[in-house]
């Protein structure tokens, strides 16, 4: 019978040797032999081998280590840092990095495979049995398990007994980079960097249930960290979104889920041209988004932003194309939908979709779109000037440290975290098109048939903004009065309020967060607007306004002397952007 072992991280390997730097006057040379003995005695370090210099006569005894020898040892990165600090300039401690061998790519550019330029030796492989367990040692079936080697990765799905066997070709078991486990539902994901896995044993992976972090979940309702970050939980109880019409253009919404039962008014399946299959969500994506927007506010599961809004589910995934998106947008216009959630995208652009988005906006249909997750330029339709584009952020402490969510922190120039612990998601697309950012890491919401899953993505960030938009359209006095008419001014006003309410997040690059994180209390004027750090924008704004007026309205000889208003600026900037795009300058 195969022996069980617990899966843990493998210690990285370091090479340690004496520096050739000149010793300070009077300093004792570092004794590499003593260092070797120290490593051998330490319980948290493993000496792998000693590389003795060749061809050099050693003056030391047989028991001694040559002063120019290099030690190879395994230890934690923290221990390596301590060692380096103790050795000062005399000691070199470096990662014992892997070397690889390469050949020209065997694939055309249209095919993308991880590290395709690397030769895979035919006869080298490692096969690893993995068993995924959850609460009370129960087997977790259907979990996706990924094993990352140096040159490639492989994946499998656990069976009813929670087990899966993964084989990586061209790899040995001691150079694996990571093990990732994504359960379908009810548990957090798991990320084990440099996993120590045994090919001849059942490698046990224990998952952490949501109920360990959220009291009695799902039998007690959990208000998501994203909703709390946007202050949904501080709004008066009668702000439920009643009266607002929302469309979710996605993969459908599973009405089998308790939190969505009675929450979706209607729908249509545009891919199959069927009226009754919109509630079959094979992808789970639309259901997850809909839960964030409109999850039932009772004692069970999660709560959405606008649980009493009228939700329409327009299914265009899987297999949806631009033509299906246009069809769905036309339906939104026809039904006088107030706000549309688009957590979809592509790297292609379309003039015909652009025309539909423009038409929708002119008819008062506000489209809120996910920026994309490729970590590069904003995808389409998020890059359209007609929409509000949403980037994703996360927050430290909202997920277990060993979950895959912990790998989503963006570390670029500037601070990685705000003082409150917010971070930009490494996957988020970014650019000047980003209007706002919203919670998009470790977002707990509904998945079919009646479960919950924590997902990452700008797809998850966007419904947070859509939900707040629906609340504003239903309850903000502007949309019951001066902006009640369905037209582009109404959409512009909505986008302005969302941006103006946003808490600025200093994460180095404003293109990753836009105006910041919208705040429900501020948007409803129930809390003061956040202070803007840095120089007052008024002077810069007035100057910019004057310049824009000269470009846009050349017949006006002198700039209008009234103080610049944010709303005018937004409109003017949007006009300017349209002109720039039409001129082909971007």
């Amino acid at each position: 019978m195969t022996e069980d072992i617990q899966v843990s991280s493998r210690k990285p390997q370091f090479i340690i040797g004496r520096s050739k730097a000149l010793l300070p006057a009077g300093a004792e040379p570092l004794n590499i032999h003593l260092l070797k003995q120290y490593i051998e005695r330490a319980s948290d370090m493993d000496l792998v081998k000693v590389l003795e210099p060749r061809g050099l006569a050693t003056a030391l005894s047989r028991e001694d280590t040559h002063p120019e020898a290099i030690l190879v040892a395994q230890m934690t990165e923290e221990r390596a840092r301590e060692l380096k600090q103790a050795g000062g300039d005399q000691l070199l401690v470096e990662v014992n990095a892997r070397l690889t061998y390469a050949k020209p790519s065997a694939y055309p550019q249209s095919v993308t495979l991880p590290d395709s330029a690397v030769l895979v030796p035919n006869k080298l492989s490692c096969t690893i049995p993995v068993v995924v367990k959850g609460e009370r040692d129960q087997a977790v079936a259907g979990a996706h398990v990924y094993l990352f080697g140096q040159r490639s990765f492989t994946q499998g799905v656990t069976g009813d007994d929670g087990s899966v066997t993964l084989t990586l070709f061209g790899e040995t078991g001691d150079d694996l980079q990571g093990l990732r486990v994504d359960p379908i539902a009810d548990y957090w994901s798991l990320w084990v960097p440099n996993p120590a896995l045994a090919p001849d044993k059942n490698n046990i992976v224990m998952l952490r249930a949501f109920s360990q972090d959220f009291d009695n979940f799902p039998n007690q309702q959990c208000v998501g960290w994203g909703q709390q970050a946007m202050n949904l939980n501080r709004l008066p109880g009668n702000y439920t979104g009643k009266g607002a019409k929302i469309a979710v253009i996605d993969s459908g919404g599973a009405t089998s889920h308790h939190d969505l039962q009675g929450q979706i008014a209607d729908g249509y399946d545009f891919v199959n041209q069927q009226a009754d299959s919109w509630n079959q969500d094979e992808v789970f994506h639309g259901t997850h988004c809909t839960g964030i927007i409109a999850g039932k506010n009772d004692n069970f599961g999660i709560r959405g932003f606008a649980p009493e809004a009228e939700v329409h589910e327009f299914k265009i995934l899987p297999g949806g194309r631009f033509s299906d998106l246009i069809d769905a947008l036309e339906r939104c216009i026809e039904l006088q939908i107030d706000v549309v959630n688009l957590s979809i995208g592509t790297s292609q652009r379309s003039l015909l979709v652009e025309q539909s988005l423009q038409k929708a906006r002119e008819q008062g249909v506000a489209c809120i779109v996910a920026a994309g997750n490729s970590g590069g330029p904003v995808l389409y339709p998020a890059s359209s000037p007609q929409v509000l584009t949403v980037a994703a952020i996360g927050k430290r402490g909202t997920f277990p440290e060993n979950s895959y969510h912990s790998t989503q922190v963006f570390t670029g120039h500037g601070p990685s975290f705000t003082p409150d612990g917010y971070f930009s998601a490494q996957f988020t697309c970014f650019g000047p098109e980003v209007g706002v950012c919203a919670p998009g890491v470790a977002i707990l919401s509904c998945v079919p048939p009646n479960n919950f899953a924590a997902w990452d993505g700008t797809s998850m960030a966007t419904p947070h903004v859509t939900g707040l938009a629906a609340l504003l359209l239903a309850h903000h006095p502007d949309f019951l009065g001066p902006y009640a008419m369905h037209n582009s001014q109404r959409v512009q006003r909505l986008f302005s309020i969302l941006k103006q309410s946003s808490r600025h997040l200093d994460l180095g690059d404003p293109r990753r967060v836009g105006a910041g994180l919208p705040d429900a209390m501020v948007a409803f004027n129930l809390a003061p607007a956040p202070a803007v750090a840095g120089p007052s924008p008024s002077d810069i704004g007035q100057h910019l306004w004057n310049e824009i007026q000269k470009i846009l309205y050349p017949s006006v000889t002198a700039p209008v002397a009234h103080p610049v208003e944010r709303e005018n600026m937004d409109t003017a900037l949007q006009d300017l952007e349209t002109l720039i795009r039409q001129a082909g300058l971007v």
Partner: protein
Amino acid sequence: MSTFDQGTSGRQQYLIGTTAGSTVSLSEIQNMLRADPQATIAGVRGQPDNPSRLIVLLAPERAEQLREQYRGELIIEIDATLHPLQPEDRDRG
């Protein structure tokens, strides 16, 4: 004996609409494409007698020909596939 239709190889789905102010009728384009052995009409949107969009399977060369022929009148674009936006393995955008 089975036949292999080389003409269908490499065809893609295109979306055809008119530009603002176009004088071309999509109804006429639809009739023309119906008679074209290189084209297959996969869908028609709008009024049956006055369509607003055509979804057509075409070879890229034929699509380019039509673009040239109706420059300024028709918009002919690849009917690209859309994806849900989740990170990494789920994101093909």
